[in-house]
């Protein structure tokens, strides 16, 4: 829950501009991007996600580093991904 996980923005949901579909380590889920309203990410850009909310935009290098860090953590990241898989934000 404390982990910031990097996700690549795939698309915005047509009828809900606050919500975007992202790809996190191959898992595609919907997250809220409303906290980045001042400088919204575009599809193909990366964001750091905390419990379903994008809190900052990051570049690809930072995303790769963050991902490597998370994969090194092991179980905690596996748990986070499993939780994300169960997520159904709408």
């Amino acid at each position, binding site marked *: 829950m404390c982990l910031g996980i990097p996700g690549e923005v795939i698309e915005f949901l047509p009828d809900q501009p606050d919500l975007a579909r992202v790809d996190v380590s191959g898992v595609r889920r919907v997250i809220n991007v409303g*906290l980045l309203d001042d400088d919204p990410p575009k599809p193909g850009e990366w964001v750091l996600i905390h419990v379903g*909310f994008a809190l900052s935009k990051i570049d690809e290098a930072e995303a790769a580093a963050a991902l490597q860090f998370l994969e090194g953590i092991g179980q905690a990241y596996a748990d986070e991904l499993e939780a994300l898989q169960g997520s159904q934000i709408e």
Partner: protein
Amino acid sequence: MRFVDEFRSADKARALAAKIAGLCEPGRQYKLMEVCGGHTHTIYKHGLEDYLPESVTLIHGPGCPVCVIPMGRVDDAIALASQPDTIMTSFGDMMRVPGSQGSFFDAKAQGTDIRMVYSPLDSLKIARQNPDKRVVFMAIGFETTTPSTAMTVLRAAAMKLDNFSVFCNHVTIIPAMKAILDSPDLRLDGFIGPGHVSTVIGCRPYEFVARDYGKPVVVAGFEPLDILQSIYMLMLQLSEGRCEVENQYTRVVPWDGNLAALNAINQVMELRPYFEWRGLGFISHSAMRVRPEFAAFDAELLFEVPGVRVADPKACQCGEVLKGVLKPWECKVFGTACTPETPIGTCMVSPEGACAAYYNFGRMNRRRKVEVTIS
């Protein structure tokens, strides 16, 4: 992994370590606290202490939100969840945290409806699917998760959802740092500031540490080289007699934080007069509660909360570990009665807790041999 190499090169780590060693004054001891549990994890995973000179000690701070939840609040949450027609939702991290009568997992095994969610927003769907139940989200965390709870309450209000509420346990990092600075037990020389919390609050809130206490703060990223770089920046300030707030993690943390997130928090929540932290006791203005304008979403008003204060188990020395007075392995029950499988104290529950980090990486004491864990 060309991207990652830039943050993990062993040569760069050794070069930084040599620069840090060059800044040490002979005979002076340096104590630097990493506030955030994520940093503690990196330090032990990569054996970063082994790169540092003998005179530089890293102290592990209270920045693990699961670790600072007092037993009484766990009991309160279970009492809430046990009410008729109630569903409690919680992050997975919270499930094993022991209360005086057991954890959320224990309560769930006895039939209490407690469900793990990834995001507080997932609770809204559960609330809509169960209109005849009351859904309470167990809200925990520092400023990294507080905006999410606030945004979820705003969304619930917009949806006019009347069966959703939050049991608010959000804590704020600044008063905890102040409590540590005021503690007579410990003399610190500087802080490695938390990375993700600062994404939200920015760097300005740490200015009092430099101004009023004369200690430097460097906000740091989570890669091994980020942390070594931050230690170098702290040591450079100390050697030059400066004390300032600096941002090593500029690639993620804006100096002013995330204003939209801060606005969401301020709209929905206000500071409590005081809040109990496990091991640290009561700290003034150190936690958030739901504002009266959003009383319809405040589980503390909607439900009867026992609010009984429960003392920590006698054998547990989490408080000393959270303040950095004791190293985890110096606790009487570390690794014997208290393990990640059967935690007595919260520091052993979360992977970001100092005790779990020590235990999982087998770093029972500080060895001097440099291990090549940065590749």
